[in-house]
């Protein structure tokens, strides 16, 4: 479990698939909560490139910035019990195999990875903590007390800050990744789920499922700048992504993605996708947005320029998280 991940990957001679993307869409990684696997999908053609068994409940998923690795949060099906199933699996994209499992505390659900692939921050839902893990040697460098029922995790573009939402406490803990300490918290609307940084790292956006809002946070001042209702406050915003000057919000209950101007937070569009969109990811170039639709067992590929769903792709039994592989 504690094998050095990077060394192992070098030994495997993993090759990047970066640059190999078809013009019609990106490569997408999708976690399957019930099917216990992660899939690599060519969203341009709809083809499943690989179905990689994880042997455990797969939820949060992220891709490394160089596109060589996909990380997947794994846990057992029972809560409040840390078992050997609780880990972050490292998938080598080239060989399409799980090449390492990194411990990340109890019941990891969502996580984020620093841009240099050195550190991982995971929320431990049942323990009420966040774990800061060295991806180099699998060492848990810090276990931080955050709010109750932590969920969403995001790391700032400069790797300085991590935000951890807490669904029961209605808080966002601000973690200084240099000090590996919680340095503040922001009270947001009820049941915060996901967070996403603006490209400049100064602001972040947090969804509140029960509050029905999206809050903009000033990260350095630890304040809520403003909160806006989503879908007329009857939405249940969960996943959040930022790209192309827009904030993309997955509304689990309404089966739509709400599109907001990132500067004004005014709604500029809505896209109907599959049932109960949960995970959402946007490509770095702002061209694509993808949702994992948990109740319709598919993903929706959205053209970010036209706001049209250009492809709906069946995947697994309950897609949970989604990441675009650069």
């Amino acid at each position: 479990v504690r094998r050095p991940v990077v060394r192992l990957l070098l030994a495997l001679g993993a090759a990047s698939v970066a640059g190999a993307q078809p013009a019609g869409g990106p490569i997408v990684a999708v976690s399957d909560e019930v099917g216990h696997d992660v899939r690599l999908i060519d969203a341009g053609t709809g083809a499943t490139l690989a179905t990689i068994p994880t042997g455990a409940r797969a939820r949060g998923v992220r891709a490394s910035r160089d596109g060589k690795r996909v990380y997947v949060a794994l846990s057992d099906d029972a809560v409040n019990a840390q078992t050997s199933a609780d880990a972050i699996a490292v998938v080598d994209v080239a060989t399409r195999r799980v090449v390492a499992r990194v411990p990340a505390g109890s019941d990891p659900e969502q996580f984020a990875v620093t841009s240099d692939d050195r550190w991982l921050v995971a929320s431990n839902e049942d323990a009420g903590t966040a774990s800061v893990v060295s991806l180099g040697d699998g060492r848990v460098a810090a276990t931080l007390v955050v709010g109750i029922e932590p969920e969403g995790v995001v790391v700032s573009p400069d790797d300085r800050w991590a935000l951890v939402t807490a669904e029961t406490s209605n808080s966002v803990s601000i973690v200084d990744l240099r000090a590996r300490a919680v340095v503040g918290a922001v009270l947001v609307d009820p049941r915060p789920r996901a967070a996403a940084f603006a490209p400049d790292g100064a602001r972040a956006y947090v969804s509140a499922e029960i509050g029905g809002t999206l809050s903009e946070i000033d990260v350095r001042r630890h304040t809520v700048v403003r909160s806006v209702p989503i879908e007329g406050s009857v939405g249940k915003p969960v996943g959040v992504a930022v790209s192309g000057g827009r904030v993309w919000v997955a509304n689990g209950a309404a089966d739509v993605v709400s599109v907001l101007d990132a500067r004004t937070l005014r709604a500029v569009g809505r896209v109907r996708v599959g049932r109960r969109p949960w995970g959402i990811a946007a490509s770095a170039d702002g061209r694509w947005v993808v949702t994992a639709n948990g109740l319709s067992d598919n993903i929706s590929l959205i053209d970010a320029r036209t706001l049209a769903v250009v492809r709906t792709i069946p995947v697994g039994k309950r897609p949970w998280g989604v990441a675009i592989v650069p």
Partner: protein
Amino acid sequence: MQPPIVPLDGPSMDRRTLLRLCAGALATTVLRAPRAVRVVLAGAAEAPLAEALAFGVSEAARSAQPFGVSVTLARAAEPGEVAAARDVALVLFGGADAAGCRAVAERARALGAVYVDAWCGLDAWRGRSDGCAGHVVHVAPSAAMRADALGAGAPDALTARRWIVTTDEASDAEMLLAVRGSRALSAAGATVVGLVGQPRAAAQAAGVTHDAVLHVGDAGATITAARTDEARPLRALGWHASLEPFGGAQLGDRFRAAARRPMDERAWAAWAGVKLVVEAALRATSAERLDQRLGRADFIIDAHKGVPLSVRAADRQLVQPLYLVRDGDDAVLATVPRPGTDARARLAALGAVPHACGVGA
């Protein structure tokens, strides 16, 4: 260039300086918001309820700590022993029966505190205006809510279409609830073939053909629905240990780890009551009392029921979905209101009673 602003009795200052001063004043007033919440369990209480309250305080204290607000729990053998406290938001729980709940609520009123009714329900104040007073909030569901919920959800849950509605006695309290239940059954598409102010046996003796019974007993304290071929009745509960969606599983697991037993509706009400008042304290402005924040239409909390919960201004009732559970079952048969169109309106109407605390209350 901005023109200078000249105060009445001081030197001139530019607009930026004034804004800085205003910002400083605002920060000062924010700091004056309550920094401590003291929860007091007053009067005799069963050990499991005290334990559930301690769990709620423990969770709320952890959530409030990053914001510089402390949450503590104290016990008082009698309501009269609870003392006033300065610079602390005082919140009273307790009351083993209707009279006990009213006594604790009255003590809260005298102290300028908030009383959280977690275990009695508005019916403990039947016919009294002080049950809807601003310092009270009812987390426990009222009998009217339970009658509405059973009427709305039982026909589908039990697949029963022809109903009679019965009571233990023909008292006003029971008959009013029986009428509510009857209306809710009809609104749900069921046929109410009889509403009788007498026990079920008498109705059956009268030869009314039906396949289910909604019964109101114990002056409204017991409301059940049952098919005629099923001995175990259905009840409308505020919580059930089997609930998993919306973080219910996580809440249940945390409670089980703390109390070594499943979370029932009274334990949930204790936990939710503490969460309600502590969130109100965290969000209250410096000019706002705790009870004022609790009654605001825009003040909502999440308590793992999948919808925003709020306190109804008219009767200080926490409006919340209820769960239909058959005695002895380990699963919920139905949630009322069901999700869907106009669910919010149906939730707002659950147990809503014109003049719940008397005309003019």
